[in-house]
């Protein structure tokens, strides 16, 4: 068996990584400066029903 993870990555792995990176890059172009990952939790709390 070859080492794991393979270095350099196999072409198929390279292809999948590039596809994911490309998709994210296309969507991330207009992200606001203040947008950070922890805003996810804020979005959930803000979207909860008002009692």
């Amino acid at each position: 068996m070859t080492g794991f993870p393979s270095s350099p990555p196999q072409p198929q792995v390279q292809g999948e990584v590039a596809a994911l990176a490309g998709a994210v890059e296309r969507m991330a172009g207009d992200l606001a400066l203040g947008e950070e990952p922890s805003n996810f939790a804020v979005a959930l709390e803000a979207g909860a029903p008002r009692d």
Partner: protein
Amino acid sequence: MTELTLTELAAAIAARKISALEATDACLERTGRLDARLRAFITLDADGARAHARALDAELAAGRRRGPLHGVPLAYKDLCHVAGLPTSCGTRTAEYFTSEVECTAVTRLRAAGAITLGKLNMTELALGPFGDNPHHGDVDNPWKAGHVSGGSSSGSGAAVAAGLAFGALGSDTGGSIRLPAACCGIVGLKPTYGRVSRAGAMPLSWSLDHLGPMTRSVRDAALMLELIAGHDPHDATSSAHPVGTPSADIDAPVRGLRVALPENYYFDGVTDEARAAVEAAARTLASLGARVETLRLPDPAALIDVAGILARSESSSIHARIARDRPHELGDAVRARLEIGFHISAHDYLQAGRLRARLTREFVDEVFGQVDAVLTPTIPEPPPVRAAVTAPPVDEIVRRMGRFSRLTRPFNTLGLPVLAVPAGFTPDGRPLGLSIAGRPFDEATVLRLGHAWEQAADWRARRPPV
């Protein structure tokens, strides 16, 4: 006795009509008879369960009831750490996965009086939706031998469906509660992200992991949720949002609730029978007074891409040691999926996290400004033949995995509560699945809708032919 729901059994034990030991023995007898085929358990703790049952019976006789699950036998996906029992995470090597911390959800269920029957089979490292496992055997579908049981909480699905346990815990990173619930014809709830502590359970992806109940009725799921939900200092992502009383609110009418059927994505490539089952559920809810409409949902493909980056990066980080030290002990498909994460850049990972926040805010504002819940199929087809979907080559298996879980994964990115509930059966007896997604922390509404649908359905007393 094993045909009772969890809440029915709990009431019968409380009324001293059934003892905890009788209920435990019934599960163990059934497991002894059926599990050679189903392969739902990895570890069965018959002696421990019987001893605990005797103690609980004695306590009840002395007038002490620990809680709503006093004497009810449950079992847990084998990535939940349980004191005194090994945890394999579906791998060959249980000794590799050790924890000083018991799974908080298990501790809470035990405090409510539940008995631990044992630890349930799962897809290796929780990576895969078909219920196959090269080390512990493939979990079979109780409704149709040789068919997919769903994954990765495959043992949880099969055990609950077949009456080997009255309820179970599963975990869900891309559909792993909902897919086996749908394939095995039971109820599974992926709660809101942060609603249920993940402490003491093997992580696969911190950002996307959820623990939740798998049961035979929606009422059972509501009760289990009530017991396991709530803030836990051992999990930094757990929310302090009030849990409420979803099991008490479940009988409220659904009249006036606004329910959407998606116009895009969620019915693309779905078989006619899977689509018809969801549409029938929508008609039933409409007949009960819900307002059903169609709605175009924000782009699910973006949610899946974001999930792909987060899940692969985090799982390869979490499992870097086993992947590097013992790659030969992992199955080919698991190794292939872990490998990708080693090559994703920090930049892309962070951008995905930022995008997730924006996409979630947009989805919640846009969709839940118009409706209270969204109905989708859980699985795009009835459970397929296991040998067909797990046949090599590896890259084709990985593609099939992606197709089978494509309806569930967007909701892990969004962190929204989703109830998977049976939606009927094909003419040859395979279950079909309905998913009901709701606002963040609004499990009460999805449970209410699921319960209304379940009560109206004519198949709810149906049990697998095992």
